[in-house]
């Protein structure tokens, strides 16, 4: 099939609200449709466009834009309103569902923001955050203070949707001989999940939380002028005719699925039924359960397990001692435990765990752009040269200190990349930590990357996962 032309397309939501999309305003669902057409969709080109506005709790009906300045007092009703600087405006998307126009679901990513909270900092460097990402996602920044600055007014955005299907390199045939068009449904996250404050740091890296006060008055956000833009590749006439004729074919793609559970003891084994036959990797990130959907905390933080009593700026970390990955009751794919207790207690990189975690998101061999450093994870600066070669050092140019990018993960099949069958076998992860038993519930967000096959035929579309 030869490609004749490339088209830049843009569609509007099929459920436009009278004002703006807003969780608080009762318009939390956005639906887009990409019509059945004899063209190929480049999924990596797909972008969600629109404007984003945060509104302070005490200002309506005037709804003045926020004024975030470093000189502002620690807490009043106007300052200290921000969204997570690593996820940015994508934190407003709680769930993303991609389906065909015949309602065959291809992929559903729940808790999309927490997925990005791990994936984006592992795969993007400080330069990426403060330049490339920030151009399309104004709230993106390596420091939460900088992200807050970018949101002191209504801002436009153009963000990629990083699901497994849409991150793939294979073009998606939209015609009858294909997926028959696509449907995209975005479910917005609660205001209390998206919005919290930000931190400033003194010379000794001690944090001060800037949080609007009182937080329970409820700041909120609005999305407006939403569109979906993407590139279409138009085949030659012969190719178009082929796509218009019902025929049989298949398409392989990766999908991300999410599972939620809670850990509340120092030695706990979580057993999950993944239900996927070609499972490529799994990773988990953690947050104390009481910090989810809580204005006073960042719902997208990716710190260590925490005992009760921690705060946004002083988490009570429960050091991870040991991790074991299990398939069907046997240690798999590692035939040994990942022991990290000594490094964790010394507040040094838990190397064995962290490398497996990175490898579950991106092959460690190709690990080149990342925000993760000893400064973000341990608060140890690593930016000075050897032997008095003075280099500019200003802490204000560094990412937030001790804002950890922590997780547990494993890549099941780094060699053949076919994946491992978990349809009839359970997946388990044993976490031995210093969590205080029964007193500190921590939520585990589990993300599974698996390979799926979409088969289309005159009889319809089937997805094998």
């Amino acid at each position, binding site marked *: 099939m030869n490609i004749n032309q490339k088209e830049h397309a843009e569609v509007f939501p099929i459920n436009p609200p009278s004002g703006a999309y807003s969780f608080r305003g009762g318009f939390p669902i956005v639906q887009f449709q990409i019509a059945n057409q004899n063209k190929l969709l480049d999924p990596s080109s797909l972008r969600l466009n629109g404007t984003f506005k945060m509104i302070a709790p005490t200002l309506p009906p005037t709804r003045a834009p926020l004024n975030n300045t470093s000189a502002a007092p620690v807490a009043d009703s106007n300052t200290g309103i921000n969204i997570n600087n690593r996820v940015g405006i994508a934190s407003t998307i709680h769930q993303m569902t991609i389906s065909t126009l015949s309602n065959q679901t291809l992929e559903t990513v729940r808790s999309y923001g927490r997925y990005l909270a791990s994936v984006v900092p592992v795969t993007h460097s400080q330069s990426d955050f403060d330049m490339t990402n920030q151009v399309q996602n104004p709230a993106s920044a390596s420091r939460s203070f900088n992200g807050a600055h970018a949101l002191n007014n209504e801002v436009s955005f153009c963000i990629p949707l990083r699901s497994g299907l849409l991150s793939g390199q294979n073009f998606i045939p939209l015609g009858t001989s294909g997926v028959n068009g696509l449907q995209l449904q975005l479910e917005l996250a609660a205001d209390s999940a998206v919005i919290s404050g930000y931190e400033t740091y003194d010379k000794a890296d001690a944090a001060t939380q800037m949080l609007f006060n009182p937080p329970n008055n409820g700041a909120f956000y609005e999305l407006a002028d939403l569109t979906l833009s993407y590139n279409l590749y138009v085949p030659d006439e012969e190719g178009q005719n082929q796509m218009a004729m019902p025929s049989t074919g298949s398409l392989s793609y990766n999908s991300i699925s999410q599972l939620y559970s809670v850990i509340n003891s120092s030695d706990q084994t979580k057993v999950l039924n993944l239900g996927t036959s070609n499972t490529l990797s799994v990773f988990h990130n953690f947050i104390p359960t009481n910090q989810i959907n809580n204005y006073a905390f960042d719902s997208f933080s990716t710190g260590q397990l925490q005992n009760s009593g921690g705060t946004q700026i002083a988490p009570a970390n429960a050091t991870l001692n040991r991790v074991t990955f299990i398939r069907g009751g046997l240690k798999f794919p590692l035939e040994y435990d990942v022991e990290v207790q000594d490094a964790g207690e010394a507040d040094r990189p838990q190397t064995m765990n962290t490398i497996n975690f990175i490898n579950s998101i991106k092959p460690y061999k190709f690990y080149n752009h990342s925000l993760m450093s000893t400064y973000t994870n341990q608060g140890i600066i690593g930016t000075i040269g050897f032997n*008095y070669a003075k280099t500019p050092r200003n802490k204000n140019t560094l990412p937030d200190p001790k804002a950890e990018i922590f997780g547990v993960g494993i890549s099941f099949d780094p060699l053949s990349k076919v994946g491992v069958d978990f349809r009839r076998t359970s997946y388990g992860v044993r976490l031995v930590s210093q969590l205080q038993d029964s007193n500190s519930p921590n939520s585990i967000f589990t993300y599974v990357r698996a390979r799926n096959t979409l088969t289309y035929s005159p009889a319809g579309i089937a997805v094998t996962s």
Partner: protein
Amino acid sequence: MFEGLNANPSTGQSIYWSGDENWDAQVISESNDSTASTLQIQMPLQDGILNGDKVFPVGATEGLRLHLTLDAVSRSCNYQWGDKGVEQPNGVLLETALAVGDGKKVAIDSTLNIVIQQGSEKNKIEVNADSTSLNTNPFSVGDCVYVSDADGNNEERLGIISSYFSSTPGVADGNFTMAVCRDAAIQANPPVPADGLALAHAQGSFVFVKNSERVNGRPSSVNIPPTLNLAAAVPISFSIENLEYLVGSVSPPAAYTAAMNTQMMSGKGLAMDFKTYSTYRVNLTAKIGLTNQLIPATAQRAYSCLSVPLSNAAQIDMAADSLGGVIDHCQNYQYVHGNKLIPDRPVPLERYNNTPPHIDALHLIELEKALLNCGFPTRNLQRMPQHFLIGRAFSKYGQVAELFGEDLSLRVEYSGEATVEKIFNHYICHLRRMTISNGRTTAF
């Protein structure tokens, strides 16, 4: 981060040491001094077989034996502040003059305060959260310090550091003050002048430690408290424990294994190519002018040459970086293979000699090509002057080049200001072929 790499030499901000040693806020003694951290590391072995893209048939070679030889501690380790305060020429400046008879010992733990000038220069010490270097103290509790005039005369041992603190605690920019315990007998009764320091030392005298005493530790003395004796006796060393070699394995289908066995038993044998490195070391006798060195490489399928100019003097020296390349006023370089000059014109390096050093773009492009051809993705081209090396890719797009049959040499031109005697390590990245035939394994 995960391989134990630490870019920051500043005391208290190292992944190898815990404790912030903020001597401006508190007195630092043996009880709250930095302690060594145990790091968990996981690092790849950058070798063609062990870090290559291919699965290695351990069944065909009846297993693999891995032999690692540890390097000397003086080459592996560096002082966090380089040569600052180490040996007389690198001493820091005395702020308060010392007089004859100072430092009399009335008890075994009596101390004498030594005040050092405050500042960010190399021969001064400061602690400042806003400065480029957070804490520039090169000394530790247990160090034995000496003092001398700037010209090296009038040298006298001051004693073992038992604590250090600011001359104006809690107020920024105080002088660094060391309390030293003199290795001398308790004073006679009545005291005599010989009980204290034997010589007077003016402001601006050099205060320093001796490298050999740090590396080997000091012998115990009856005039020093036991805890301080212990601190002074500790030689510099490192230890590696709980070594494990983590490796993934695959189990091929039975038919694949059978075919491999058949091939191994045949006359043609089972052949496998793998990437490896051959090292050629050349001592450069000339320091200045156009230098030429022959690299006796005979690789038939070569990818790149990486040439690292090392300082001869720094090879076994903890006060210097033994593994980093030195610039030393190099002007340009060019490889010669047979009668071909590669690249066509000399690659300029002059800008590396600026103060502060700048980079030369052509050199970076050549280096990136060479590294990429070896299989190293370029992750960071910052601070190049501090990890300086030169390189040349002999091929592109995964192809190989033949070095055998013609001489390979490197020309590096140095200006008349060059002072360092150098040893060049040339790493030739090339392919080797292992053949297993009739139960015998050969590699060439």
